[in-house]
């Protein structure tokens, strides 16, 4: 606030530099919405950075990220708040939208905080799914088993 007032007072002297700086500080903060169909985790919150796992790879979103649409894969979403703390959630799938005005909508089909996941159960499910893969031959159920394997692998990796 004080800095802004100082900048405005020195505006006539350093006009060009000021305009450039104002362009950067004028960038809107990220309005981050993170929700699943049953629960809202963040609603138009202002956060520093969000790391998302997508089908084309994991990337981090900061304010003024270039607009994009992506589809999520099973993995961990990390949210870095303004005060430096971070929160991790495991998402199964969904979509992420970054708009031109720096608003980000992260919609997950199912999302849980990492500490609610049990690594032993995840390992057991992974082994069972890998065993099923050998036994199924039907296209659709094969795809289901592979999705299960991918999700469980991601959970195990996230919890280790």
């Amino acid at each position, binding site marked *: 606030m004080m800095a802004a007032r100082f900048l405005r007072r020195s505006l006539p002297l350093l006009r060009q530099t000021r305009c450039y700086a104002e362009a950067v500080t004028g960038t809107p903060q990220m309005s981050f*919405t993170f*929700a*699943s*169909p*049953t*629960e*809202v985790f963040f*609603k138009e919150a202002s956060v520093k950075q969000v790391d998302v796992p997508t*089908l*084309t790879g994991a990337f981090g979103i900061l304010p003024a990220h*270039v*607009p*994009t*649409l*992506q*589809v999520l894969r099973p993995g961990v979403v990390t949210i870095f708040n303004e005060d430096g703390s971070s929160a991790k959630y495991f998402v199964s*799938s*969904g*979509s992420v*939208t970054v*708009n*031109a*005005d720096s*608003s980000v*909508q992260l*919609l997950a*089909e199912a999302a849980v905080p990492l500490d609610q996941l049990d690594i032993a159960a995840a390992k057991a499910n992974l082994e069972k799914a890998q065993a099923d893969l050998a036994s199924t031959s039907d296209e659709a159920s094969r795809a289901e088993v592979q999705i299960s394997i991918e999700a469980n692998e991601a959970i195990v990796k996230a919890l280790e």
Partner: protein
Amino acid sequence: MFARTSTVVFSPQCGQVRNMTTLKDITIRLKSIKNIQKITKSMKMVAAAKYARAERQLKPARVYGTGALALYEKAEIKAPEDKGGKHLIIGVSSDRGLCGAIHSGMAKTIKSEIASLTSAGKEVMVINVGDKLRGLLHKSHGQHIMLNCKEVGRKPPSFGDASIIATELLNSGYEYDQGSVIFNKFRSVISYKTEQKPVFSTDTVASSETMGIYDDIDADVLRNYQEFALVNIIYLALKESTTSEQSARMTAMDSASKNASEMIDKLTLTFNRTRQAVITKELIEIISGAAAL
């Protein structure tokens, strides 16, 4: 004078035949209306409980649904006016009645939409979510109906239900250019409004000019994104629709119970008057009989 006395003498049978309201008839009516009042009262309690739960679940669903629609609003994606011969309408309602004007209002909106679109030369297909809509639409607009969904409204809708509907729609192979989801948006306990949310085809979104600013999108990603967005919109419509329906049923059952109470009061008065009249008649007969001796 003679005529009058003769009618007075014969009045018991004539009176009963004329009014058709013996004590027994009134008693039967009174009992049945009391039963109806009990039933409507309990339906109101059930609807109130279901409404409370639906409203609680609507809060996160609304954030989720508006997040899903945010892209279309921010990128200002509009369907091209000239081309686009195929239109899709998804009407979201339920199977059960006794909820006021929920189903009839939606059927009216859908019918007027079909009329305006067909007069503009477009082909329209309708998906009915809910048996009541099917009943209202299939006689007059049967040729437009593509898909019917039953067993809607018994349990609260889940994301899985929305994805089943979306999967069936995509499997049906109807290549729509644009569409809309019509549902009753919940405003408050006593009011709801029929609203439409747009559904765009992947081609419309891909060829929209404002999409150019979105970086690094290939066709596969866009198709996945679109399918997911479709499920989200249907999910939002289902949640809003159930909440409106339960609140409307609560109001309807409440006014039904009130009407039943009024009828019970009126009938009880009539019953007492009739009872007193019968007793008086019997007394008169006895007394005049005794006086004749």
